[in-house]
């Protein structure tokens, strides 16, 4: 009992802070979602499920949901595949030297390069890519295209390209972190397993799919969930990069953008909270589903 008291003493403050600053806003968001609160006074009326009814009838909500679905499938897939590839190249693809696996030449340098986007603030990344995607010949990509005799492309103004352009930025920004994460995971795999596989004549590809990936599975799973949750975000990049904050024609809108517009643009805090509640359940459902679907027998080494 004394030991429990000791532990509880340490936990009390953080739990209290968590309850006040995380749990209670969530609970209040659920409450506000059932009201017509306008955000400028303490007065509000209870309106039942009106906000949710409005939400399900709103095209912008469904559009945001569709965009989240695309993000959810492509963004983690691209990021994890690239990160795995790079991590493998950096750590194990250089072949065996002196009994240990090494990365390709200059891997130390690449490690820094890959991680660099991670230390940039999202707003900086946004501004950076605004210049990269600029639709006239002053843009980084379009400038090159024009010099090669091509036509400038509306990366963010063409409704078929806009979402993909933003996904590319998200992947670019996230890959570095997962390279480091997977590298750490690979470093934890005992070297003798690689050595044994190598002696048995496994090539690089075989080594990756039959040895590295299965032993790295839990790390990949964690990464997948993180990225999935990130796919429910996207607010800052969409806000800075897209036209009309989520355009053209809603092609890049996400739930957080809709929440922001409704709360701070139209003073519909009740409706915005209803969107927030929807986002909460979507994220939760996604995390639970991913955990279930990707569950495998744990490999102990």
């Amino acid at each position, binding site marked *: 009992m004394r030991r429990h008291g000791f532990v509880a003493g340490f936990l009390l403050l953080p739990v209290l802070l968590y309850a*006040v*600053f995380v749990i*209670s*806003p969530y609970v*209040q*968001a659920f*409450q*506000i979602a*059932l*009201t*017509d609160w*306008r*955000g*400028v*006074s*303490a*007065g*509000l*009326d*209870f309106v039942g499920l*009106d906000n949710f009814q409005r939400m399900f009838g709103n095209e912008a909500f469904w559009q945001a949901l569709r965009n989240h679905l695309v993000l959810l499938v492509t963004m983690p897939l691209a990021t994890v595949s690239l990160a795995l590839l790079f991590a493998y190249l950096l750590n194990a693809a250089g072949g065996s030297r002196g009994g240990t696996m090494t990365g390709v030449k200059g891997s130390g340098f690449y490690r820094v390069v890959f991680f660099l986007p991670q230390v940039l*603030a*999202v707003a900086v990344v946004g501004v950076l890519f605004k210049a990269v*995607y*600029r*639709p*006239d010949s002053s843009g980084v990509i379009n400038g090159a295209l024009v010099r090669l005799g091509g036509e400038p492309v*509306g*990366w*963010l*103004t063409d*409704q078929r390209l806009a979402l993909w352009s933003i996904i590319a930025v998200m992947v670019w920004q*996230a890959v570095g972190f997962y390279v480091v994460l997977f590298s750490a995971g690979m470093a934890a795999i005992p070297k003798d397993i690689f050595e044994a596989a190598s002696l048995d004549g496994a090539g690089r590809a075989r080594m990756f799919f039959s040895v590295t990936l299965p032993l790295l599975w839990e790390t990949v799973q964690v990464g997948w969930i993180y990225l999935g949750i*990130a796919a429910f*975000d*996207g*607010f*800052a*990049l969409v*806000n800075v990069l897209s*036209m*009309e904050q989520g*355009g*053209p*024609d*809603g092609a890049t809108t996400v739930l*957080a953008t809709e*929440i*922001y*517009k409704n*709360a*701070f*643009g*139209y*003073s*519909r*805090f009740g409706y*915005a*909270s209803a969107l*927030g509640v929807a986002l909460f359940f979507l994220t939760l459902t996604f995390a639970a589903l991913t955990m279930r679907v990707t569950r495998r027998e744990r490999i102990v080494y």
Partner: protein
Amino acid sequence: MSPTRRDVLRGLGLAALATPLAACVTAGRDAAPGPTASAAATSANNPLGVDAARRLEVVIFSGGNGDKYAVDLHEAAYRKAYPQAEIKHVATQKVGTQLRPRFIAGDVPDVVNNSGPEALDLQSLVQEGHLADLTPLFEAPSLAFPDKKVKDTLVGGAYENSLIDGVPRVLQYTVAHRALWYNAKLFEAKGWSVPRTWAEFNALGEEAKKAGITLFAYPGQVGPFYQLWNLIYSAAKIGGNKVIIDIDNLADGAWTAEPVRQAVAAWAQIQKDYGDKAYFGLDHTQTQVKHLQDKVLFYPCGSWLENEMAKDRPDTFEYAIAPVPSITSADALPYEAIMIGVSEAFFVAAKGKNPQGGLEYLRMMLSKEGARGYTEMTKNLTIVNGLVDGLQLTSAVNSAAKAQEAAGKNTITDARFETWYKELFDYGQTQTNSVMAGRTTPDQFCANMQKKADELKADSSIAKQTRSV
């Protein structure tokens, strides 16, 4: 991953925390009565009943015009008149973020310059009874012209624009002229004249094309509303101001009316024939720089443009304003008609500690020193008539003044759904980009806008506004 989103959620959470919400959810709307400040006795020198010793808090949006004018002119005047009163000056770029929690908690400043990207939604403030009735101010004697009431010293439309639900609640302080801006020096050098008809506009487009200049561009990324304004004002030119009044009143078929369709079709065709799709992805600053580089001939904007671009403007560029060319030969308004509108909103908090002082502060802003000084300092004309004689004005303001003279009574009214129904206005911006880029037809534009307007009309949670003039 994104701190901004977290800020949003935290903002939501904290704002909620600031209220004892657990009680409020059931407490209902009339839970928190605001403090009411009693007025002092009125006199000829003090028509609004200001308590000389009471503290006054002023919140100024520190944007393009800065906040120095408030400190040096208006607060100085107040301090001079009431030396015992303490004045608290707050400059901010985030009016909403900073003031929203204070309105909830009941600790409100007295005067607020509600401008900028985070301006508070006036409609919901009125619904919660936060905005003071400005009638005493408008009825009080003017400081600029002592024999007149304040109301009678202002340009036409200024008083009408202060009305929300028929009661004056918000003072729009500056006057801006909105039409097409061009480089007068370039026109002189090329020997071009400003087009008066749509045919001349097209002909000039061909000439400009040969010279490698885009006839017309608006910023699609940030600021498609410049073009939405342009579409609406063009429609008013064809069909008269009734077109805009109908739109504001959410009248049936206001958007599907023929003048709107004609205006949208005409502009979409200009974009198709002489435009450059790159501008859909540029923001207003980037586009305005291109304009200054003579890559764009006409740019739709207001008379604040020159001030905004003062640092980048080369000597070869002289801003001048041109009315939108007449689209049909049977337009209801003549070619000279331009839009003259008011902006820079100020309001007095009804539940503040010193509403009388707030009204007096606004009266001082409308005094001779206050208004003329403001024009001198920020190069913006104010709504007070007849105070600018002998002032050094910029070429843009001079050009606008001339255009105003030419227009005479033929001014295009401002579209108020911009603040009344912000949701409709924002939707209009996305639809403008869509129709200008050719993703939707003008007919679809009209139908989509009408659908959205009808939805708002049927939505009982949004308070409705009407106007007759």
